[in-house]
């Protein structure tokens, strides 16, 4: 398979002016400025194959958005190489730009707010040179999937955040980009809207085989949508691989949820650390390498009607990663 994104040793260094508080420092900074170099991204390399949905995660200020901006051609890296769809993004060739979309949850629509949604879609059609037949076809699909029928004639400024996000997606997808950068697409949305967004992204990627790079702080987004994650922290690549494996390597225990039909409950603490018990159900914390042995014992010694082995909640694992790094 051909890789859609190929990143080699990508590095971005900013210079930021520094100033102390107060009048004196303000006056001093008129003549003498001090700068600090900020290494936003350092030596990141990875590749993404066609049709993949990759979660790009890391704490605030890790360099996620900077990387997305370099991949979409907005920023010119200090060092390193990027090929996206075979092009060098920051040359911003129209042929490349027509095939990508950058959608930001913090600002889904950038055009003037007084226009109606349909006006804006038509304008996109003009800019991205979409033929009338293609436009109608994509529009019908998007209206259906994003439930836009009621919104098309409304002014953008009067839309709620959730509606705005749906329209932002429609504006970006009307020209059928092959490569999507989604920067926190579920930011600030309510539960229903988040669900809808996730379903939509999943369906879209399945049906169009578009390659999607997604950042989000909601682990559930990443968990449902991305098989693979790329984790960066302080500008450096920390992990690249399957999400479950990260969770597995990071936490040394698993959660064993057991329900039994015996009248008398056994002494659970003989099997593992009891997290919670209720009637004839129990959740046990068991060392990863002992899960098999404990399970066998349980099945032999009790009448098990339900048994589930779970990883600890992802949010907790990520919290640990962000605070302590990957050991």
């Amino acid at each position, binding site marked *: 398979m051909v890789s859609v994104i190929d990143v080699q040793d990508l590095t971005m260094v900013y210079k930021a002016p520094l100033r102390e508080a107060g009048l004196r420092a303000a006056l001093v900074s008129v003549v003498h400025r001090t700068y600090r170099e900020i290494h936003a991204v350092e030596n990141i390399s990875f590749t993404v194959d066609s049709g993949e949905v990759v979660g790009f995660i890391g704490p605030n200020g890790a360099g996620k958005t900077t990387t997305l*901006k370099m991949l*979409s*051609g*907005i*920023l*010119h890296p200090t060092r390193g190489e990027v090929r996206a769809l075979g092009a060098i993004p*920051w040359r*911003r060739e*129209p*042929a*490349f*730009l*027509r095939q*990508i*979309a*950058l959608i*930001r949850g913090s*600002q889904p629509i*950038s055009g*003037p707010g*007084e*226009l109606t949604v349909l*006006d804006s879609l*038509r*304008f996109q059609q*003009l*800019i*991205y*040179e979409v033929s009338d037949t293609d436009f109608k076809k994509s529009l019908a699909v998007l209206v259906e999937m994003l439930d836009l029928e009621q919104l098309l004639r409304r002014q953008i400024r009067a839309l709620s955040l959730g509606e705005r996000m749906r329209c932002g997606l429609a504006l970006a997808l009307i020209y059928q980009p092959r490569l999507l950068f989604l920067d926190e697409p579920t930011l600030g949305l309510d539960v229903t809207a988040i669900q809808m967004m996730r379903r939509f992204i999943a369906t879209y990627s399945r049906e169009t085989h578009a390659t999607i790079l997604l950042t989000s702080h909601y682990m559930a987004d990443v968990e449902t949508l991305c098989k693979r994650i790329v984790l960066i922290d302080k500008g450096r690549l920390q992990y690249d691989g399957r999400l479950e494996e990260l969770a597995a390597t990071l936490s040394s225990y698993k959660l064993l949820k057991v329900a039994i039909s015996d009248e008398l409950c056994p002494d659970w603490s003989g099997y593992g650390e009891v997290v919670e018990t209720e009637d004839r159900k129990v959740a046990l914390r068991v060392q990863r390498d002992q899960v098999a042995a404990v399970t066998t014992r349980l099945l032999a010694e009790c009448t098990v009607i339900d048994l589930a082995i779970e990883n600890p909640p992802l949010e907790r694992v990520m919290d640990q990663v962000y605070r302590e790094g990957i050991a």
Partner: protein
Amino acid sequence: MKLIRILAASFSLSLRRELTFRANLLFQLLLTILNITASFLVLGAVYTQTRTLGGWSLGESMSLLGTFQIVSGIYATFVEPNLSWFAGQVRDGKLDSALVQPVSSLFMLSLGKCEPLALSQVLPGLLVVAIGWHNLGTIPTGWSILGWLILLAVGLIIAWAARVLLACLSLWVPSMDLDVLYSALWQFGRYPVDIYRQPLRFCLIYILPFAFLATFPAGILTGKSNPLLPLIGIATGALAIAIVHQAWNISLRRYT
């Protein structure tokens, strides 16, 4: 071609948008009328004290004032709505979204938006030019009208170019928001540059050539200027476009 279609589409979209605010329209017209009346009264007061102002008679000064009004109107319609408070636009990510569009970012950012209602300033401008002619008692020749039109275009190109260069500057130094300064200097175009004292006059002709906004076109129209001026103007305009393209590309590289 595509650019012209985008321009037309954005004009029609903006018109639809603006027509939703009727009170705005009324107020804008009122302000335009008050402004032009003010300039008219000033000219009237000046010419009761003197017959010529820096070599310009009353009728000539009126043609100049009208020309300035026309240029200002077109500028306010097509150029001004775009690059204002550019550093702020960069902070909000407007620049970013323009950069990922498959159309020249310079075009989209400097001409992509417009305010069709500001075009209403052009009409009183034409009126004032006509009054000026009437006052002069001469009919301009076809050549002088052509020269006037060429220099009007050059003036607009220069105004646009200066605006883009300021935007480029704010990519280098984000704290430099020179919008206010620009519109302040713009006001110097309202009167013949001949009335300003030396360092300022030199600036207005050679450095920030706002003399092209009104003084030079009106000079051609009333037969005061060198008939070769339109040719110099074309060269200056072409140079301005070339410089802007270079500067924009260099600045973007710096931003990105």
